[in-house]
């Protein structure tokens, strides 16, 4: 099918490592991680290593943008992210040619127990209400779409954004995602025994779980190629393991389906690098090694950025994709932080040190609860 091309006009990342894609990327190059021990006495005495946003910095930066007082922490992060990304483009956010797609798992869940002190009405824990508040902040009158599909939400939201442009429905799409760390999410993953006691170590032999992270990210997708819009969203696919709701498949068959469909609908046989999910749980990383091997991609340089950001859930696909775009634009492969010794059964070409190399194509993948898998392919234009 000969369809409209989709360009990435700008990205933003809001993370403990910085409030713009370029500043965050510089911190990755420097090997800085956002993960630090933080106390949650309600859950246990020992600290949890997590990558958390500073409240002071978030409030101060948001205060420079708006006087609006009734805004949750989640909303501040996502509004700052959208605002910064838009400022780098000519896209008119209030135009009826610009749609908004959101990606999150838990949104304003803090409103459920009143732990959020912003005075925001409880109804904004409904994701559609939150999304309507955010689009109205930017003067947009269209009905926003929210993708909530566990840990693949970010990639899926990018694919939906691509669909909205390729099918001719909109000229521009703002794809924005975020998730915050709450007692809810931390207690849940802790009860699942999925959390590592030290900063997570994707693919490493000693990995023993994930580290949670919080953050927001935005992609401005557009049908029109402009000066800076030199990376395209080429193709993508989603699949389901049909195996287990909370554990990945042993064989990686579901992820293979998504990756194979993605590559098949492009002209790319092998991407120049893979930005994988790599949560650092024993089962997830092993499943990925099986899947990439099954797809004949075990020699492709691959990293997980969870060692820098932690697992940012609904924002992960967007944050990590934004860094992949920075890698392509600056021809810099980023090392997979936390990896020391091979800890998966199939061969993988884990990136062990930063490297200057021409990068034209990137495959980004994710897998999540509910047995879902997603893959998306980015390509430099010309």
């Amino acid at each position, binding site marked *: *099918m000969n*369809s409209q091309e989709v360009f990435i006009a700008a990205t933003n990342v809001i993370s403990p490592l910085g409030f713009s894609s370029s500043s965050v990327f510089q911190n990755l190059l420097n090997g800085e991680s956002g993960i630090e021990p933080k106390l949650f006495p*309600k*859950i246990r005495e020992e600290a949890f290593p997590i990558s958390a946003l500073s409240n002071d910095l978030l409030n101060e930066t948001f205060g420079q943008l708006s006087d609006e007082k009734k805004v949750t922490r989640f909303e501040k992060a996502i509004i700052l992210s959208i605002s910064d990304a838009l400022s780098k483009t000519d896209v008119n956010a209030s135009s009826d040619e610009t749609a908004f797609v959101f990606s999150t*798992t*838990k*949104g304003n*869940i803090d409103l*459920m*127990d009143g732990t959020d002190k912003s005075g925001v009405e409880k109804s904004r*824990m*409904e*994701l*559609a*209400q939150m*999304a*309507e508040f955010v689009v109205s902040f930017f003067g947009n009158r269209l*009905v926003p*779409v*929210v*993708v*909530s*599909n*566990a840990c693949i939400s970010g990639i*899926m939201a990018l694919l*939906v954004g691509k*669909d909205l442009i*390729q*099918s001719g*429905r909109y000229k521009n799409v703002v794809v924005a995602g975020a998730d915050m760390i709450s*007692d*809810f999410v931390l*207690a*849940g*993953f*802790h*009860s*699942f*025994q999925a959390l590592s006691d030290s900063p997570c170590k994707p693919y490493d032999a000693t990995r023993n779980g994930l580290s949670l992270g919080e953050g927001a990210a935005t992609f401005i997708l557009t049908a029109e190629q402009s000066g800076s819009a030199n990376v395209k969203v080429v193709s993508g*696919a*989603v*699949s*389901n*393991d*049909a*195996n*287990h*709701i*909370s554990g990945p498949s042993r064989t990686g*068959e*579901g992820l293979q*389906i998504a990756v194979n*469909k993605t590559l098949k*609908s492009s002209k790319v046989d092998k991407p120049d690098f893979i930005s994988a999910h790599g949560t650092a749980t024993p089962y997830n990383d092993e499943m990925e090694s099986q899947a990439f091997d099954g797809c004949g991609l075990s020699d492709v340089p691959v990293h997980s950025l969870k060692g820098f950001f932690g697992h940012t859930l609904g924002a992960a696909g967007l944050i990590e994709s934004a860094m992949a775009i920075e890698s392509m634009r600056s021809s810099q492969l980023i090392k997979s932080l936390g990896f020391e010794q091979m800890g998966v059964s199939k061969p993988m070409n884990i990136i062990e040190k930063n490297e200057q190399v021409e990068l034209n194509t990137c495959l980004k993948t994710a897998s*999540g*609860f*509910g*047995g*879902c898998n997603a893959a998306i392919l980015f390509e430099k234009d010309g």
Partner: protein
Amino acid sequence: MHNDVVIFESASTESSREFLKQAYQYLDLKYPKFHKMDLLSKLGIVAGELLVGNEEESALADLGIVMANRSSSLQIDEDFAKTIRNEENFFPSPSLFVYTLPNIVIGEICIRHKIKGENAFFILNKFDPCFIFEQVKWLFDSERFQSCLCGWVEVNIDGIYEACFFKIDQQPEISELLNFSTENLDNIFRKWIQ
């Protein structure tokens, strides 16, 4: 309700959980996992069974699933939040936590029928036949799937629920079926849900 025919009805005094349990028995599902599921997944399993329960597994492997609702997983979120509300009584339950994502209902339908195709869960303020139609049509046009189960599966925070599923085929075997259009989605939804 299936294709305008009432399949199963129960006295209105029954609780919502009880109704789904009776529907499970009526449909003779023989799927013990059902009883461990949250309300949203039970609802999706029952509605899905009516549309694809009689199809061969091999015909369903590439089925796409596109679902939406308003309340995400807020009803089970509230149940999980209760387990961590008090420090004296702090017992977060992993079996509840796993259901605190709306797309788990898609995962449960996929496991039940061995479906490995494209899937997506959207949160919308209300059933939006135009968005569902255009998104599903585009996924057909761009060959992401050849058949699709789409619709609305909603449980609000108080446990009040509604579901309206559509099975869309590109080349239906029965010719007198309705065309896939925004208008038909809207009409069917309005007729039975609103």
